[in-house]
């Protein structure tokens, strides 16, 4: 996308796999409200979190693609009809919009200074465009969002990945008995990260641990949702960085799963709450793109498109990195 090889793309997102890559690559990505886009056809990872969303060069492109993919699908019982049609954004101001800046999302440990600066400039710009900007809080969402995510997602993944046993389809390793065939298929077919998550998830769902882990995580999820709802009583959009850092080097974090997990810290809370989030490029840090995350109410994609579009026009982000432009 960033290299201009495709006009649009669809991403599958569980805890940030649309917004985070969009931020790191300097493009626009929307993770829609849970239930607005069918999951039929995607390989399920964490069913209560999985969503499909558009990636594009502009907010308007994302809106165009979203307009096509959104809506109820009889093959996915968790989908709904959109309460209002998708509107392509036109306005270039933010008058009448109230934008909240959750302290925890903007001041979390690990946010690089260059990222914080670019995001702060974008938020200043919101004021200039006529938005009403104020601080707000999401204390438990950010503190507990990530740990809860790493209970819910692996638990569901451990369930969803059980079918890949090599019997009916897909990769199969040979074995003298069914059990041996299945063991070897799983051993060779799954990478380290899926295995890690299957083990975590199986443990979290075990008898005697369910209430302490999966059950508790789902209760916290309700609290996260309530916290967001409270913030949306005062604001229409919540703004902050998409990723704490700019793009890291290839393979840099594969040896350190925890650091990798932390890179989803800021995208996870709204995913856990099932809310839509839009990431758009808002500047550079150390020569690499920084993403601004806008989170909206359930089904408020139109508001996100409007805010994102106006900001995009005002920011005039140049998608071609300077070092490439110079070359």
């Amino acid at each position, binding site marked *: 996308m960033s290299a201009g090889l495709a006009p649009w793309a669809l991403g599958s997102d569980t805890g940030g796999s649309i917004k985070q890559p969009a931020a790191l690559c300097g493009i626009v990505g929307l993770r829609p409200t849970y239930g607005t886009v069918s999951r039929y056809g995607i*390989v399920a990872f964490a069913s209560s979190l999985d969503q499909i969303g558009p990636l594009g060069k502009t907010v308007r492109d994302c809106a165009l693609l979203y307009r096509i993919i959104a809506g109820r699908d009889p093959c996915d*019982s968790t989908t709904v009809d959109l309460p209002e049609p998708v509107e392509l954004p036109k306005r270039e101001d933010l008058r009448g919009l109230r934008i909240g800046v959750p302290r925890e999302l903007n001041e979390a440990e690990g946010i690089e200074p260059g990222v914080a600066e670019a995001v702060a400039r974008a938020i200043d710009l919101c004021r200039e465009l006529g938005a009403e900007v104020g601080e707000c809080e999401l204390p438990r969402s950010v503190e507990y969002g990530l740990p809860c995510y790493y209970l819910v997602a692996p638990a569901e993944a451990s*369930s969803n990945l059980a079918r890949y046993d090599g019997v*009916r389809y897909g990769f199969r390793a040979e074995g003298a008995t069914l059990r041996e065939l299945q063991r070897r298929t799983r051993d060779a077919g799954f990478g380290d990260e899926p295995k890690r998550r299957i083990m975590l998830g199986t443990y979290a769902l075990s008898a005697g641990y369910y209430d302490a882990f999966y059950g508790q995580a789902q209760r916290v999820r309700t609290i996260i949702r309530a916290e967001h709802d409270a913030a949306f009583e005062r604001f229409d959009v919540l703004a902050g960085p998409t990723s704490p850092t700019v793009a890291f080097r290839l393979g840099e974090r594969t040896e350190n799963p925890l650091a990798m997990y932390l890179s989803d810290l800021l995208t996870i809370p709204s995913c856990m709450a099932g809310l839509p989030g839009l990431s758009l490029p808002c500047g550079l840090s150390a020569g690499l793109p920084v993403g601004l995350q806008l989170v909206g109410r359930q089904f408020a994609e139109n508001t996100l498109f409007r805010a994102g579009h106006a900001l995009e026009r005002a920011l005039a982000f140049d998608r071609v990195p300077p070092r490439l432009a110079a070359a």
Partner: protein
Amino acid sequence: MSDGRGTGSSQRWEPVIGLEIHVQLKTRTKLFCRCEAGWGAEPNRRTCPVCLAHPGTLPVLNGRAIEWTIKLGLALGCRVAERAIFHRKHYFYPDLPKGYQISQYDEPLCVEGRVSVPGPAGDLEIGIVRAHLEEDAAKTVHVGGAGGRIGGAEHSLVDFNRGGTPLVEIVTRPDLHSAEDARRFLQLLRQTVIELGVSDAEMELGTLRVDANVSVRRAGEAALRTRTEIKNMNSFAFVGQGIQAEAERQIGIWESGGEVVQQTFDFHAGSRTLTASRSKEEADDYRYLPEPDLVPVEPSRELVERLRAELPELPGARIRRLEGAVGLEAAAGLVTGGRDRLFERVVAAGIEPRAVGNVLMNQFAGTGVDPEAVDAAELARVIEARDRIPRSAFVEALAASGDPGFSAGPYLADAAVSDAAELEPIVERVLAANEAQVAAFRAGKQGLLGFFVGQVMRETAGKANAKVVSELVRSRLER
């Protein structure tokens, strides 16, 4: 001995039985996909990406199955939950392609029911804990090895046609206290299910499956002792035998100072024995997870009330209604055999109830004629004439009574020979030809009466009135 409260030392013991029943619904399609459900297709023809658990597929709930489960729940006196949710029940077995079964767990569709089962000592009140909806597993066939079981089999085959078929699981409270109680309850339940039109409920075909939880306690004891579970009993008779055998085993253990261990047993019909299949130590951890691919089921009040209004008069009530006329056993037999409506129509035509009950329960039942296809007025004429026409004509008439346009006339015309003067020479001839049997009869073998009557019937090509012949033979020999 069909009663667990048998004789001897077991007299002081009372079995405590709870049942877990699976009823396969006969919906046109499966529970979560559009595949045709039901019997008769080549293996693995009624499958699709959804019921084979292919990547990317999602379940879509069959609304008819929900309605039928509610209907069945209402017939069992259950309360229909305002909100029910599906759970994933995980286990690895080749019959379960997703690695989990979609079932219901702590928020089932129907709860807290009660069924009154007419019994000799008043109604048995059987509590229903729950009736929930779930998908059936595929069918596995183990080839080679002993007894068609997976251990020792050379290979196993899986037929996914059954996988994903809707099942209602019904769990009773431990309110049953004998194998006989269990049989009465199950027969009533089966008839209820059949009359609701939601399942064929054939134990032999596995569309009705019964597991029993059994414990025993000393009469008067309030607490429950350790229970065991019996599986694989695929007829009403086997359910009775399995419960009986297990209750006796447990009584033996307690009386010899031992301790019953929580276990699951398989019943073997051939030897009527139980073998342990797994103990509690190996109990499965199903890792229940609320099914994120489905939304909660919230049946509207209107739907529940509409389904309640559609319920027919239930079999239990009908047994009680007929009990006065023909006695409990005949009433229960007529109702659970699906012949009580015909009974009432024939009685309404003026025939004596006990005679009608007797014929419908015995000779008529033997014909396999569909009671619903019978013209009751014509059948009434046949039953009314039962002592006047030859036995063969009577039986033929019953067998034909379900045919379209059946008329009793031709069978009645074939009147039996009841004239003693006409029959006496034949009786004499038969007795003369069977001297040895005559001597034996006179020496006390009264059972030979039937033999003589049979001989006379043969001589007359079945046209003799058996009752008259029997009287003639008796008076002739006892002279």
